[in-house]
């Protein structure tokens, strides 16, 4: 162990803002990136499902139109 106490650890030899600032921002960015990746997958799948339903409806609509016209 390198620290006499927990408060000494948090104090980081007087450099607390520089050290914890660095690691804090990194943690935020990593968590942010993970959230974005999860959201991207969810948004992509939902959007592609919606597109597919729209296309199917379009195809179904076209068939209905052809039935009427024929």
């Amino acid at each position: 162990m390198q620290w006499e106490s927990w408060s000494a650890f948090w104090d980081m030899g007087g450099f607390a803002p520089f050290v914890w600032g660095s690691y804090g921002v990194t943690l935020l960015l990593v968590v942010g990136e993970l959230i974005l990746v999860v959201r991207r997958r969810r948004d992509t799948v939902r959007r592609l499902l919606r597109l597919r339903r729209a296309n199917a409806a379009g195809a179904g609509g076209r068939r209905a139109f052809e039935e009427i016209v024929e």
Partner: protein
Amino acid sequence: MMKDMHKPERSKSLFRFAAPQMFYPLAGRLAPWFAGIAAILAAIGLWLGFFVAPTDATQGDVYRVIYIHVAAAWMSMFVYMVMAFWSFVGLVMNTRLSFIMSQALAPTGAMFCFVALLTGSLWGKPTWGAYWVWDARLTSQLLLLFLYLGFMALTRAIEDPRRADKAGAIIALVGAVNVPIIYFSVKWWNTLHQGASVSLDKAPSMATTMLTGMLVMALAAWAYTIAVTFWRVRSLILERERHTDWVAAELNALEGKI
């Protein structure tokens, strides 16, 4: 006697994973493992860096920023080289997945590049006495961030995916020249940033526990990059290959679950 009907042989070589359809499930299976490895390595690295490694005689405890700063800087350079590699392969072999992979890597590389710059700045103020200087090392690292952001903006802005692929590939290849410049900047020019503590041709100038912590964090960052890139590439593949039957089947399977 009836001859056995057998399925057409799937290629057994590793090159079959160059097909998006084959790589998609592989990436899905591997990503959680790399995420787990990254978490474990990060825990070990941080424990080594904060509880095992001693303080530094010159800088005191502020040197401990090194355990994230160097890992991030190394990854930012390595990821861009990998992007350049896949861009080269894609242009030569005309493989879609190569370009997709390059685009999946960029955001994580950019993140690490920003982390390297920010942690470096916070480390510089109490030690050098400045948050920023325009020396060759810092300037070329900032240029790398611009290259990452330029790559991401350009590939998103171009509508046609094939043209976006090629435009991105050019930025990746041209920008890759900057990476050795970043690395050798401290050797070629007078810089405020100090020289390499770790290199292939001389003994490390760090205490062993410090060095170990730094290397473990670098490995953690590498495993993390693979996990996140594999997860991201799956979304990109679904998007690019949305007109195929296999994606239709995959969407069927996911319907109601997401």
